[in-house]
């Protein structure tokens, strides 16, 4: 298994722990990862608002760089917005007129996009290329006693979902079970985290985060697969608490951090102290000695 890795902008700063834990976990699972050189922003939700062509050209610039590699490896995206933008561009490129317009723009960068690169989400690779059995085989410290609420967010599965259901996704369940955790199923697994509304319309965004966190209540922590989702669920719990009139404190992990814990990977690879909502309550639950059944 070899992939070209597109980290995306957040993974180099606010979500550094996502990038590091992803790389450590994939290395432990014998996947070969090479970072795409000279990558640039996918355009996020902003490029499309500036110009429809720009929203295709920015992802295409990176896909063109990936296609320069002779062996046509799949591109690995860990941010769901990057993933959705790349897939959207791959679909649009099927139209020759669109592809030619994209290339008229990329020409100034000395690049040409053929429309052959294929982008995959980290969750797709973990669930389908690697699979729960191989993940389970690598576990040295099962997360027994830890109840995890999976949270997929939107763009992991919408509008492109070649690997899971668009509204009731399930691919995290078997992975969480493989690392020994209990799965807390809830109604908000694929609801929206509010994305940039937390900044532009916080009064609306806080309500969206609150709904997701309420869905997770009963679990010891949540597992996410997108930097934006993680940031929104993790960073606004104080305001959500005042909104709901009760204290909400939920550690919000990136899925590979939990897998890494079960693999016994070092703290330097997992960076569990970078979260705003302390991860300690969840980690302390793990530290408890297992109850042996009579």
């Amino acid at each position, binding site marked *: 298994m070899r992939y070209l890795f597109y980290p995306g902008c957040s993974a180099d700063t606010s979500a550094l722990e996502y990038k590091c834990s992803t790389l450590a976990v994939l290395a432990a699972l014998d996947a070969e990862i090479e970072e795409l050189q000279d990558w640039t922003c996918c355009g996020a*939700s902003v490029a*499309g608002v500036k110009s429809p062509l720009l929203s295709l050209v920015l992802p295409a610039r990176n896909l063109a760089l990936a296609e320069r590699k002779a062996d046509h490896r799949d591109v690995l995206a860990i941010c769901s917005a990057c993933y959705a933008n790349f897939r959207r561009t791959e679909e649009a490129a099927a139209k020759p007129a669109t592809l030619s317009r994209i290339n008229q723009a990329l020409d100034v960068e000395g690049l040409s996009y053929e429309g052959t690169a294929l982008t995959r989400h980290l969750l797709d690779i973990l669930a389908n290329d690697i699979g729960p059995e191989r993940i389970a085989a690598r576990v040295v410290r099962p997360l027994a006693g830890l109840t995890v609420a999976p949270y997929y967010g939107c763009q992991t599965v919408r509008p492109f979902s070649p690997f899971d259901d668009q509204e009731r996704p399930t691919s995290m369940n078997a992975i969480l079970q493989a690392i020994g955790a209990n799965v807390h199923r809830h109604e908000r697994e694929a609801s929206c985290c509010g994305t940039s509304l937390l900044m532009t319309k916080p009064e609306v965004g806080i309500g969206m985060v609150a709904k997701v966190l309420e869905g997770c209540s009963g679990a010891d922590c949540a597992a996410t697969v997108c930097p934006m989702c993680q940031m929104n669920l993790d960073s606004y719990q104080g305001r959500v608490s005042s909104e709901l009139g009760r204290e909400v404190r939920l550690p919000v992990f990136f899925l590979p951090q939990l897998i890494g814990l079960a693999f016994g990977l070092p703290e330097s690879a997992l960076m569990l102290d970078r979260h705003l909502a302390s991860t300690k309550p969840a980690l302390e639950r793990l530290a408890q000695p297992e109850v042996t059944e009579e």
Partner: protein
Amino acid sequence: MDLTPRRMWRMTHLGLVDEVLRSKTVWLCSMCYQCQVRCPRGIPLTELITRLKQVALARGVAQSPDSRAFYNAFAQVMRRYGRVREFEFMVRYLLATGPVKALGFAGLGLDMLRHGKVRLEVPSIGGEGRLDKLFDRVAELEAQA
């Protein structure tokens, strides 16, 4: 939302674009694609809302000045460095929205700084931006269309 996505689509078809642009719906869309994947007619509703935002910003419809500031600050940083420097983007955004909003984010900013989530980088001023050529070329092509 004051207009449901379905109503918004129909009004756009009927040419009531000004009314649609003045609605809250356009600015409340978080691009979750829920309406688009549920639409039994396969209408690309989320894509439409993105286009409506674009038209609104181009026409200077001031329904949501904060959204405008957000998109502009993000695009400026993306164009300048090729990647989004989150700290500079936040500073540019909050400078454009005014002190009340900025104060609302001060506590969160400090908390993030304390947890190593913020990388402080000196902004580069002057000279060519990393994606200037590409942005300019795209603008040229859009103008031709």
